C-alpha cells in the first residue's frame, strides 16, 4: 500500500497522521478535507458524551468516500463538522486550504455557501417554494443577481433531468425527484465537496439505485463526494469506505477491500 496517493486509504492512525501533516500547518493542496485529531464532546444534561475522540482523515479531490458506522459511532457529528455546521472542541479541520475549525458563525455560513453542497436524508426542501426557487436559495445567499440565479438553477435542474418539474412544489414531486432537486441545489454553487447524509434513507431500493447512479456520474466527472450511510450496499458504491466506531476511525479502505471483506 502506498501511503501518499489519494487512492491509498490508511488503516492505521499513525500512518494517517503522517498523511494529514503537522498541526498548525496548511496541508498538501491535493487534500480537500483534512482533519487532525478532531474531538467533539456534548454536554447532555451533565453527562459528557464524547462523540469524536480524535479523528484524523484526509480526503483528496475527486474522491468518492462513504463514512459508515453504527448509530452512536460519531458519523453524524463528523458529518456536521465536515459540513461546517458544527465546530470541534479540539483539533483542526482544513477545508480546501482554509482552517475552518476556528471560524466564526458568519464565516462558517460563507464556507457552507461556497464550498459545500448538502444532500439530506429528509431532502430539506422548503415546502412552499418551487423546485426552481429551492435550487436558487444558495445563490441568493451568495448575492447573485436574480437573472443569473434563475439561469444557473435551471441548468442545475436540467443536469438532474428535472427541467420539466421546475415549477412544482416539493409535495408535487416523488421522493426520488425531491432528492434530485436537493442534489441540484447542492451543486448549483459549484461546491468543493458534495456532502450527503443518508441520501437514500427515505427512498425505496429502486429509487436509491437511481440516486446512486446520479452520485456515480457526478463522481466520474470529478466531483468530490462524501456520503454518510449505515447501509453497506449503499456504501459499496463509493470508492473508499471509512468506518467509525466509538468516535474513532476503525477502518479506512478501498471499495474492493471493503466489498470483499463483507462479501458483497
Amino acid at each position, binding site marked *: 500500500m502506498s501511503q501518499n496517493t489519494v487512492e491509498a486509504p490508511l488503516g492505521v492512525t499513525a500512518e494517517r497522521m503522517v498523511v494529514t501533516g503537522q498541526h498548525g500547518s496548511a496541508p498538501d493542496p491535493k487534500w480537500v478535507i483534512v482533519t487532525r485529531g478532531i474531538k467533539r464532546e456534548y454536554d447532555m444534561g451533565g453527562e459528557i458524551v464524547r462523540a469524536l475522540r480524535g479523528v484524523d482523515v484526509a480526503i483528496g479531490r475527486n474522491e468518492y468516500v462513504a463514512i459508515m458506522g453504527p448509530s452512536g459511532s460519531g458519523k453524524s457529528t463528523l458529518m*456536521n463538522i465536515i*459540513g461546517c*455546521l*458544527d465546530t470541534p472542541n479540539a483539533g483542526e479541520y482544513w477545508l480546501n486550504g482554509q482552517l475552518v475549525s476556528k471560524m466564526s*458563525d*458568519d464565516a462558517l*455560513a*460563507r464556507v*457552507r*455557501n*461556497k464550498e459545500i453542497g*448538502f444532500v*439530506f436524508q429528509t431532502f*430539506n*426542501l*422548503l*415546502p*412552499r417554494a418551487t423546485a426552481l426557487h429551492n435550487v436558487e*436559495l*444558495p445563490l*441568493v*445567499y*451568495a*448575492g447573485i*443577481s436574480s437573472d443569473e440565479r434563475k439561469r444557473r438553477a435551471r441548468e442545475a435542474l436540467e443536469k438532474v433531468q428535472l427541467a420539466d418539474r421546475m415549477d412544482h412544489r416539493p409535495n408535487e414531486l416523488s421522493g426520488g425527484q425531491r432528492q434530485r432537486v436537493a442534489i441540484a*441545489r447542492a451543486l448549483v*454553487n459549484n461546491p468543493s465537496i458534495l456532502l450527503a447524509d443518508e441520501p437514500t434513507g427515505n427512498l425505496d431500493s429502486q429509487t436509491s439505485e437511481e440516486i446512486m447512479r446520479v452520485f456515480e456520474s457526478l463522481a466520474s466527472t470529478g466531483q468530490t463526494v462524501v456520503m454518510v450511510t449505515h447501509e453497506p450496499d449503499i456504501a459499496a458504491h463509493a470508492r473508499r469506505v471509512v468506518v467509525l466506531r466509538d468516535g474513532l476511525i476503525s477502518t479506512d479502505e478501498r471499495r474492493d477491500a471493503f466489498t470483499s471483506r463483507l462479501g458483497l
Partner: protein
Amino acid sequence: MLFLQAVRIAWETIRVQKLKSFFTVIGVTIGVTFLIAVVSIVSGMGRYMKDDLIGKLIAVNSFNLRKQPDIQMGDVTEAERRDWRRRPRIQDTDVPAVAAGLPKDVLWATESSDNLNIESQYGSPRRIQSITVSESWFDIKKWGVSKGRLIAPQEYQFGAPVVVIGQDVADHFFPNLDPVGRQVRIQSIPYTVVGVVEKQGSAFGISLDKFLVAPEKSPLNRWVNPHGVIDQMVIQSTDDVGMKEAMEATRAVMRGRHHLHPSQRDDFTLETADSALEFWNKMQSYLVIAGIALPTVGLVVGAIVIMNIMLVAVSERTREIGIRKSLGARRRDILNQFLVESATLATMGAMLGVALGIGFAKLISAVSPLPAAVELWSVIVGVAVGAGVGLIAGVYPASRAALLDPIAAMRQET
C-alpha cells in the same frame, strides 16, 4: 439585493397566510385608522373654523374694534366678564377720530346689529338679524348681490329706508317672488328691498343667509342701538402688515380717547380672525395630542401581538431557518428576513389603517356637519409608525431566529 429578496420572502409568507396576517396586524390597523381619522377630523374642523366660520364672520386682513370680544370660545372667567361689562361702549364720536388715525388704503365701516321682528305681507313675521352699516361695509365683506343692487352712496348719506337682504330672508318673506322693489316692515316702518346678497351657505349647520342690512343713518339704527353708540368698527387693510399697523394706530387713538395710563390695559377689543381662533388653536393642539396618544395604545397592543405571532412564526419555521443556514444564510440574513417580514406585515396593516381611517373620516363628514380633511403628514406618520412598530416588534423574534443552531433547527419535526 438581499433586502429586496427579504421583502419578497415576507410578501410570499403573508400572501400564503392572509387571514392570519390580517389578525396579526389588526392592532396596528386600528391604531393607524384612529390616527388618520382623528387628525383628519380635527384638521378638517380647524380648516372649517378658519375658512368658513371665522372667515365669514371676520373678513380677511381685517379686525373689529369692539367693546368686548364677539366670538367667545373656551373659558372666560367671571372676572373677565365683569371687566367687559364695565367697559365704555364704542361711540359714534370715536369713529372719525379712529378713521383719521388710520393709514392710507385702509377701508373701514361701522356696524351695529340686533335681532328684530320683521314683517311682510307674503310671510309670517320672524326675528332676523338686522344690521346697520356705513359705506364700504359690503366692500370689506366682498359681498355681491344675486338680485338687485347694493345700497347706493346717496342712500347711506341720507339714511334712506332701504335694505339688502340675505337669501334665506328673501325666500321666507318673498316666496316665489322677486323681492327687489317690495317692502318689509320693521317696527311698522316700511323699508324697500333693493337687493339680495349672494348665498353664503352655512357654518356648523347654522345658515349665514339670515340677515338684513340697512344704512347706518336709516330709521332702523335706533332699534339696533342706543343713540350715539355702535357695536363695532370694521377695519380692513390690504395685507397682514398693513393690518398690524392699522391695529396699532387704532389702539393708540382709542387709548388716548379713553385716557388710559400706560400701565392700564386696553378697555376695548381689537378682534381679528386669529384672536377669535386662539381658543380653537389651543383646543386643536389638545385634540391632535389625544389623536396621537389614543392610537398609541392600539399600536402598543399591535406591537405585542406582532411580536407574539412572529415568535410563533419563528418556531413554526425553525426547520426552514435551519435549511437556510445550512445553505449559507448568515445570522444577519435570517435577522433581516424576519425583521423585514415583521415590518412588511405591520406596514401593510398600517396602509390598511390609512385606507380605513380616510374612509372613516369621509363617512363622518358625510353623515355629520363635521368636515374632514385628510392630512398628508398624518398618512406618512401613520405608515412610518406602522413600519417602525413592526420593526421593533420583530427585533426579539428575529434575533431568536438568527441565533438558532442549524443542526438542532433542521432536526426539528415539522
